[in-house]
């Protein structure tokens, strides 16, 4: 009899365990803070509210690959900045950049800017995937990209161009 009770108890426990589903929700707020931290670094933006304590971010953004990508993007931004400023380059609504107004780039520089834009988008794509990967959730890549899409636009400087949700170019 005792054997059966033990057996049933173990079976119930087993069934209970097998029914447990652990849902890991995407930490959107933490991702926003993480995106801001990266944007600050890449755009060398010191204007952010200093009350943001990035140590509390519940999302890992630091890995050698992520650091290397941010370093490349920071160096590249120095070359891209004047094209953000004159409206040649705009921030797309899917977290990338685009040469939206080629006429604003001197013809001789057109190739150079095209190559910068291409390299920047390649790095951004890899960065979003890397953040998802270092947090152990490769499936978060789209969520991370979405967060970045809104943060790049939100943090853009006055006068920069961005795409709204309908894909229309707007000016900050």
């Amino acid at each position, binding site marked *: 009899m005792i054997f059966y009770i033990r057996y049933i108890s173990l079976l119930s426990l087993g069934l209970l365990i097998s029914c447990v589903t652990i849902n890991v929700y995407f930490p959107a707020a933490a991702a926003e803070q993480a995106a801001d931290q990266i944007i600050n670094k890449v755009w060398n933006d010191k204007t952010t509210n200093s009350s943001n304590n990035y140590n509390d971010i519940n999302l890992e953004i630091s890995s050698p690959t992520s650091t*290397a990508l941010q370093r*490349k993007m920071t160096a590249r931004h120095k070359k891209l900045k004047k094209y953000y400023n004159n409206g040649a380059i705009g921030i797309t609504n899917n977290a990338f950049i685009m040469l939206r107004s080629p*006429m604003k780039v001197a*013809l*001789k520089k057109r*190739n150079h800017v095209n*190559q910068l834009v291409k390299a920047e988008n390649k*790095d951004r794509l890899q960065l979003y995937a890397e953040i998802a990967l270092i947090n152990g959730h490769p499936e978060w890549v789209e969520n991370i990209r979405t967060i970045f899409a809104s943060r790049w636009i939100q943090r853009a400087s006055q006068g920069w161009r961005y795409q709204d949700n309908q894909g229309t170019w707007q000016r900050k």
Partner: protein
Amino acid sequence: MKLLLLFLFYFYLNTSLFAFENLHLKFKIAELNVSQQDFKNIKLECKNLQYTTQLINCSNGYLHISSDLIDKPIIKLSFSYHLKTQQLKFNIEQLAIADGKINIQVKSINNNWQTKLNIHNIELTQLLNIIKKFIDLPSDFTMAGRSNLTINLNTKLQQGNKVKIQGLIRLNKGEIYIDPIYLNINKQPLNMAIDLSLQPKKLNIHNLHLTQKNILDLQTNAYFKLEDKFAIERLSIKLKPTYIKKLYDNYIQAMLEEDSIFNQLKLQGMIKAQLNWQSNKRHALIKLYNINVEDQKKRFGINKLHGKLQWHSNSQGYASHLHWSNAYIASSIKLGRSQLRASLIKNKIKLLAPFYQPIFDGAIKIQQFHLNNIGMENMNGQLRGEIKPISLSKISTALDIPKLNGNISGKIPWLNYRNQAINIGGRLKMRIFDGEIIAHHLSINNLLNNIPELKANIKINKLNLKTLTNITEFGEIQGQLSGYVRKLHLIDWQPVSFDAHFANPLDDAIRHRISQKAIQNLSNLSGNLAVNIFSNSILKVFENFYYKRLGWGCRLRKGICHMSGVGATKKGYYIVQGGRLPRLDVIGYNKSVDWNQLLNRIKSISNTSLH
């Protein structure tokens, strides 16, 4: 084509003059639709139309068209038609389009059309946008800039719907950007002479001659099939001997990335090239004549480069052969005369004879090299080579650093490239600073990708510390140094992790001395080092000190270097353990230091020492 026509046609006779002279012609079309483009309110008016039995002539007419495609709706025109000879002449003046002006002259007689177009200051992006409304072009095809163009074409309609076109297109001025080619035509016009036949399913280019005086002379003939699928049946392109400097300055430089090491070159010499394309084989050939290349930042240069580079789609027997009289790298590392023999077939490159490049009194020798599937996902290859001993004294003299003894040599038993990763088999050995550095289990991943990753183990055997410290401003240390860097992991050439330890070998045969300057620099290296000595004043008195043993270790993990030395003290570890009197110990108390901070300290010591 959709044609909606509201037709109004009338003329009236001015009775004061001869009959059929000074007619007033008015012709109106309400709307015309061509390739889904609307042309509205089309009016043709000629106030002084002559009409005789031999001639219809309008010398002062105008055409009015409302359309987004043109900048001004009114176009001046004149035309005449000889009834007997059937000769038609037609002139359009000042057609305002794409922010520029076009004059058109057309003359036709017996199926033979002569067309002259004079295009002034046209904006190519706008022109391309207009062309794209009528013709399907690839989406990434872009043109930009302003240009002046003259086009003279002779078009003949022949039997079998064959059209023969001959003519000359001259680009007089302007900039053109067709991704990724940038052309700036300001000094010399670009001329294109064409002679072609067009049939419904084939295009035969008998001759297409592109010239820019003293810059470019390119001749092409080709035969294309224009059936359901476009196909090149035959294509031949010949670049006549050209000054490589002119070609580079006018065509190549703007295509290179600004940061590319090839972006700022000084060039001399001539180049000739040829491409032959047939449906079953392709062959490209470049001949180089006495070319001198020099990077403006003096990073590299090559003199009297001569030979031919050729590629064939499938056949052997098309070897490439280059030779040069001398070259240099890093401003002053001189390379001697050498040559290279290789074959480039399909997507494979293979060294046909060992490559031997003399450097000072030594050389780099590549015994074997091949690379397959170039440009493809599964690109792979192998290399085997060695560095024949090069005297460090020669290198140090060239680099203007304190004189070094010994030599540098090495061996690459085999190097494999596969799946975007390089693996070096055996040991990569380098004899340097009277000792040796051996790298093994060396691999590089994602070499051609954005973020390369290197893994290796390195062993260091008995480097002469005096030789090593004498090339730096760190301060002289005597003795030998052995050690290792295990599990070295670099991402984007930055250290991520490693286990390193360097110390005097137990059988060190060289006497141990350390200079005062080296002690001070060691003390500054870690914020928390201490120097134990009888008296600080003694440190100032003596230039050099005897030491028993020195060493330092770092275990790098997550940006933190966990340090160790050559023996434990009560609270720390010995970096330098003193021996005879006056005994001197350098003790580290801080066991962990931020790697970037440590690097900054090393940089700051280097800077201070240099001053």
